[in-house]
C-alpha cells in the first residue's frame, strides 16, 4: 500500500511517497530516506499523494533530523493534505520540520539564501 519514487532533479533528491505509511510500510520510507541522505544532496519529500501517516512514519523523519543537520543537507516536506498535516500538528512536529504547501514552494525555499 506504499510506493516510493526517488528521483534527482537539479542536484536535489525528490522522494515521492504514494499511499499509506503505517507500522508495516514505514520501513520503505526509512530505506528511501537513508538512501537519499547517503547522496549528500538536499532533499524534498513530496507527500501530495500520501493518504495516511501514523507515528511510524513521523518517527522516520524525526530520526534523521540530526544527521541532516550535521551533513548540512536541507530537508523539506511538501504537499501534505489536510489530514496528514494535522497529524504533524497534533505533536507540534510542524515546528521542527520545514513544511511547504507544494513542490514549487519547496524548491523556492531551497534557492532562498540561508
Amino acid at each position, binding site marked *: 500500500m506504499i510506493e516510493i519514487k526517488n528521483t534527482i532533479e537539479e542536484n536535489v533528491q525528490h522522494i515521492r511517497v504514494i499511499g499509506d505509511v503505517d*507500522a*508495516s510500510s514505514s520501513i520503505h520510507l526509512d530505506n528511501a530516506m537513508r538512501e537519499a541522505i547517503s547522496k549528500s544532496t538536499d532533499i524534498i519529500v513530496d507527500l501530495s499523494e500520501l493518504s495516511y501517516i*501514523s507515528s*511510524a512514519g513521523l*518517527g522516520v523523519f*524525526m530520526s*534523521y533530523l540530526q544527521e541532516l543537520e550535521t551533513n548540512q543537507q536541507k530537508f523539506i516536506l511538501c504537499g501534505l493534505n489536510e489530514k496528514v498535516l*494535522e497529524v504533524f500538528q*497534533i505533536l507540534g*512536529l510542524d515546528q521542527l520540520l520545514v513544511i511547504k504547501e507544494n513542490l514549487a514552494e519547496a524548491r523556492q525555499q531551497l534557492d532562498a539564501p540561508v
Partner: protein
Amino acid sequence: MRPYNIKITCSTSRLLEIRKFVSGVLESHNYPEIESHKLVLAVDEVCANLIIHSNDCNPSQHIELKVEYKEKESITFEIIDKGISFDMNQYQEPKLKELVNTKRKGGLGLMLVKRIMDKIEFKTEKNTNICRLVKLID
C-alpha cells in the same frame, strides 16, 4: 445501540483492515470525516503497539477490537489481546528534542493517542489485556 467488532492476527499487514473497519463504523454514524481520521489513527497506533511490542508480530496471536457508539454521548474502543501487558504507569512521554537527539523512531504513537482521546485505560484480567479508549461526542 449496536456493538461492532473485528478480530485480526498479530501482523502489521492487517492494520489497514483495522483502519477501514473503524472508519466504516464512524462513517455509518455520520461522524465528521476529519475527526474520524484522528480516531482511526489513535486506534491504529494502539493496535500497532500491541501487535509489535506485546505480541512480537506472532501471527498465531490475535487482537480483537470492539467499538461501541453511543449517539451524542461517546465512542468507546476496546482493544483486547493476550500478549505481554502494557503498564501505562511505566510510560513516560518522551520529549521531542530527546527523540531527535537519540534518533529514536518510536515513542510518538502513544503521544498521539493521548492527545486525540479523552480517556485511555489499560487493564489486565485473567491473562487478557484490555485497552479502552474513549472519545466524548460534543
